[in-house]
């Protein structure tokens, strides 16, 4: 499995952060490890590192992994991240699901990141 194209630090392409402003992606013991950083409520500044649940390829030959899913339990909400590479950008969709009984709607965000290494 080749995850080299996903490894590294990723920064958001614009200043108007929806949820995440940076990502760190590393490989550890054959798994992809993802760490996200936010500014502002309801997210913590550092989401901590989690292992990607699964990797996906968009290529017919499956030569390189180009997408992943990861999941965080952030206390009042769960976040499912589905990210894919597209033309050198990392496109990150997040599904924010509240479980704290608050009157906040579950939210979808899609943000774009460039490779900052």
């Amino acid at each position, binding site marked *: 499995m080749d995850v080299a194209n996903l490894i590294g630090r990723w920064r958001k392409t614009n200043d108007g952060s929806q949820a995440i402003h940076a990502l760190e992606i590393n490989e550890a013991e054959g798994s992809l490890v993802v760490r996200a950083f936010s500014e502002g409520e309801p997210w913590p500044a550092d989401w901590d590192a989690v292992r990607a649940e699964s990797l996906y390829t*968009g290529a017919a030959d499956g030569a390189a992994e180009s997408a992943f899913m990861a999941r965080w339990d952030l206390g009042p909400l769960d976040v499912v991240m589905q990210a894919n590479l597209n033309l050198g950008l990392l496109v990150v969709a997040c599904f924010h699901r509240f479980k704290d009984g608050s009157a906040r709607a579950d939210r*979808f965000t899609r943000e774009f990141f460039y490779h900052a290494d």
Partner: protein
Amino acid sequence: MSTPVTEHRGVTLDPSALLGTWRNTNAASRGIVRIDLERAGSAIALRAFGADEPEPCNWGRVPARMYGDRFDANQALALDATYNRGLLEVHLQANVKTGVLVVASFTRVLDGSSANRYTREFYYRLPEREGPRP
């Protein structure tokens, strides 16, 4: 296969921007060619049709969870849903953007016999009179 539709706890979002019959903009797609989204109580249900001959394959009805674009939203503009199709687990994420339903599909091959696949496809909404047939 079909799964009972369930409602999710939390704020109830207006699903009207998502409802209807959506057709793939790529007539040659070998993935999902049509998606039906309908009300199920205060929630919604999704039915996908995969490319097949002589007719598209009905994957069955599954619950879909709705999302807004803000925490104070009252309009649903995105959803996710999961199909368990034997050895394939298919996660669908979709959002409406400028009238187009953008659908990312993450297919996990549970026995590892081939690579997990990711696709993104685009769908337009049919006028109501061209909606799903009984």
